[in-house]
């Protein structure tokens, strides 16, 4: 039997009216389920109308389909509403137990080393430093020569280097990033270079052939050793609290002059403990005023500009902060470790 649009629309209205009457009379879940079967089952009233759609003229189908879809949705919603209204009944109260565990979530986390690095980055960005990154495979020129470490210089002994053939090596510090940055930009420069570095150390509790470093550089007119001390001290206080103290000791690095090692006051507040080997100080890393020879390599005029540079080991700080006593743990990625952060 061919139907036309009007009769279908009319039937839709009738079904809607009939449904409204039925649903109002339902008094229980079972009543409601029966109404659901009558209207929405595979052989229910609404489905029968869908079958009739196929007999309509092509141009009428979407309109009728839309109406029918709407009817189906309305009925479904009304039934859901009704069913929900019965849920406050005694049966469901009995099922409810607020002490059952909630559904498990996948809890993401950040690696502790990178959490510390994030904190370091935030502090320096707040002090006007820009973050720069570079490759881990570097050239001898950028890792050594341009940092005033000529071939055959004894200070190369401080850097047990992995070589990759030709002029290539794995960077032993992130200082080459400073050279790249100075090659591309003119002062003023305020940057930090975080990243992985490599030295030929056999892994043990306190040595890792791969480690993360942050190096900072500031070049401008009139930058002094006092500025270097100020920035490092501000960092120490932001990282370890306002009571943190910094101590600078003379040292030697080919790329800085004067050069320094700097220490932070230990958590024991100078009382002396195992961590600081009873010295009250924790060795952090090196720093100094940029050696004029380095400026020569990047074509900055040392008569006009001066600068400071400093470094720090991320693992060292993370070990102090989280009381981790074996550096290798950071690279094992045992989820029982990662879960703690």
């Amino acid at each position: 039997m061919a139907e036309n649009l009007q009769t279908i629309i009319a039937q839709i209205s009738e079904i809607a009216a009939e449904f409204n009457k039925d649903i109002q009379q339902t008094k229980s879940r079972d009543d409601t389920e029966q109404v659901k079967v009558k209207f929405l089952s595979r052989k229910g009233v609404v489905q029968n109308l869908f079958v009739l759609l196929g007999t309509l003229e092509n141009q009428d189908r979407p309109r009728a389909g839309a109406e029918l879809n709407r009817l189906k949705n309305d009925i479904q919603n009304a039934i859901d509403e009704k069913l929900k209204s019965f849920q406050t009944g005694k049966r469901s109260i009995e099922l409810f137990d607020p002490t059952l565990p909630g559904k498990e979530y996948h809890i993401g986390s950040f690696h502790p080393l990178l959490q510390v690095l994030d904190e370091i980055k935030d502090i320096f960005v707040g002090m006007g430093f820009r973050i720069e990154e570079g490759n881990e495979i570097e050239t001898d020129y950028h890792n050594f020569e341009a940092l005033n470490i000529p071939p055959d210089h004894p200070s190369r002994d401080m850097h047990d280097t992995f070589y990759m053939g030709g002029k290539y090596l794995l960077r032993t510090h992130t200082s080459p990033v400073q050279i790249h940055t100075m090659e591309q930009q003119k002062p003023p420069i305020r940057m930090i270079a975080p990243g992985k570095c490599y030295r030929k150390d056999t892994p043990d509790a306190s040595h890792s052939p791969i480690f993360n470093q942050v190096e900072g550089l500031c070049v401008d007119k009139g930058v002094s050793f006092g500025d270097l001390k100020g920035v490092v001290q501000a960092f120490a206080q932001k990282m370890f609290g306002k009571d943190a103290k910094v101590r600078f000791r003379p040292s030697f690095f080919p790329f800085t002059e004067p050069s320094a090692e700097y220490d932070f006051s230990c958590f024991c507040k100078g009382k002396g403990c195992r961590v600081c080997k009873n010295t009250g100080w924790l060795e952090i890393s090196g720093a100094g005023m940029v050696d004029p020879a380095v400026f020569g390599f990047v074509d900055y005029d040392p008569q006009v500009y001066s600068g400071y540079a400093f470094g720090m080991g991320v693992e060292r700080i993370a070990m102090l902060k989280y009381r981790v006593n074996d550096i290798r743990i950071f690279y094992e990625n045992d989820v029982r470790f990662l879960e703690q952060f």
Partner: protein
Amino acid sequence: MKVTLKWLKEFVDFSLTPDELAHALTMAGLEVEEFYTERHDFSKIVVGKVLSVEKHPNADRLTVCTVDTGDGQFSVVCGAPNVSPGMLSPFAMNGGTVANGMKITSREVRGVKSSGMLCSEAELGLSERAAGLMVLPENTPVGLNMEDYVGNPDTVFDISITSNRPDCLSIIGIAREIAAITGTSLKKQKTTFAVTPQENIDDYIKVDIKNSFKCARYSGRLIQNVKIKPSPFWLASRLHSVGIRSINNVVDITNYIMMETSQPLHAFDYKKLAGKTINVREAVDGEKFVTLDEQEHILDKEALLICDAEKPVALAGIMGGLNSEVDNSTETIFLESAYFDPGNIRRTAKKIDLFTESSRRFERGTDPNGTVFAMDRAAKLMQELADGRVLSSFIDNYPRKITPVEIDLSVKNTNKLLGTNLSAENITAYFPALEIGINKQENDLIQIKAPTFRPDLTREVDIIEEIARLYNYDNIIPVLAPPVNQEQEANQKVNFKDQVRHYLAGFGFKETVAYSLVSEKLAEPFIPSKNEFAQLLNPISRDMAGFRPSILLSLLTTVAYNRNRQKSNLRLYEIGNVAWKDQQKEGFTEFTQIGGILAGKSQEQSWYGPEESYNFYDIKGAVAALLHKCGINGYEQGQVVEPFWDVESSSILINGKYCGAFGKFNQDVCSLFKIKVADIYGFFINYEELFENRLKDKKYDPVSKFPSVPFDLAILIDANIALHEIEKEIKNSAGPHLIKIRLFDFYKGEQVKKGKKSIAFSLTFSSKECTLGDEEVEQAVNNVLAHLNKLFGAVLRPG
């Protein structure tokens, strides 16, 4: 570098306690690693006199001695070859303890009772000399406690010397630092000794320097009539304190003076030098030479050799030759004290991998003007301790004179660089103790002469460091200037990477950081064809042979590690650099990669539902979510090229470019990592592509104030048409009001015709201008249907 308190006090007077001295040196740049007072337990160890020595009845090499301690006589079994009646030697009585912790008791040795022990210096911890009993001078009182004989224990400081301070590889250098810190000056040392009159050294030896760059100065002295014998106790024990073994008096003297002055000396046995000649020349390529330690070295023409008329006798600045070594029959010494070019010594030592106390000093730079002083100090001791006769004239060839460097120092520059306010007087006050000379001083400018034992002082800034050091870094006031150049733009590439980390952590992934050095075996399947493993020339192990070619390699390693620890269900990510060696061009390709991994179950069996394992659509969901967060909505999928994927895999194409892939790891790669159950899914995306294609400029898109209209569309379509194609075409044909497409049903199988699939979308329409009427939605759906029908032959699914 080890030094002792008593030795230092021979050169400088000071009253600092060991603790104060350690702190003062550290704060001046000479980091004291540790210091300790040498302690010997000498209770019950006294001076004993050997009264008689009898052969042991049951052992050839043992003797039975009677020892008198003044308090009594003891019968002792002794194994020392030098025991003789009448000698005085330390005697450990029963109850005493020797250096290795052994407690002396009465016992039987091969059937003979022995009470106590006659001791060597080694047994008392006074030196390494263990070959015979310690011989005490004849006038030592018998029964004297050894503590009273040895005197107060000395304090040893172990100082880490930076490579720019070769002068501090000596007692005098460190004493000079102490003088500078405490504001005193060095005590002068005498080098006077008696000499044989009227003999010309030229009659004995001639020195010819062929390369004055590599050897700027060669000084030498001849000492005749020497008696080679053990060093006196004080010399052996002092060398012992600073970590040097005692050999014999002559060799010990050269070492002692090297420790004192930092000038390495070498003693040749004069009679082994052929032709009364020393030639300082370069080696020829391939020339062989055997050093004192009996090692043969093959040299190249860079190396510098000390030769006699016929043969090389020493490897200059590094080690003497076996063929000219001082031995017990040596009577005449030719003592060498030279200055060699630092770079050349280092290159040679490195090439042949032979580093000695001598090479360590030469390669850092010795004092070219200190050769004669050191040589004369040694000659004096050889006279005193080896009965030597020192020839009056000596060799001093100095073809390339090295003069003090002159430096202009500006007071203004000093204060500017340090952030201090020092006067010229403040500054120059530091110079005398450091032996920095002042040529002249005019207004702001001080012209300085740097001593030649300080090769590190060549520029103004080097002098500024000296001033800062002695002023004390602690006294420089920290300044926190307001941030400069705050106008600089943040590094988007770094920030975006951190954003990606936050997205992934938000999706429940745990961040990992793995070693980026891996084995070649594991790397192999991850290296793109036609490229090579980025290998290290000098790896520490096979497991860390080169740079990882893929972040997935690290993640699979992490999975294997955790699975071995009963952690099988994992949801991890890592962002890091990967690299390989390029075959096409020189060097390496290095870039940053993002990787994620899902392993095992996504949900374990619980009270609210059954367990669920991760599948392909979990990893695809993660990739889609990440791309969505980065504002990349139009990615396409294609065939993977990596060999480690299972068939359940897909590449990620952004603007047609291969940017990554995701899917299930195949059995082979899991086996390679010793992962037993191959239920691991992963993805990688190259960071550069993600960064370049990210939505750079997010803009607010106003949401509609009008209700949206849902419409479910179910169609039958050819099974081989990709869903993203269908969705694309729906978008192309639905008009401007379609705001969302969501697939909610998918079916392939018996219920539909072969080669077809049934798919159902929930479409949502909405307009920002008005409430959409049914007609508009119907029209849009009709257009979609007609378009899909025309393009793909899709038809509405019959109810």
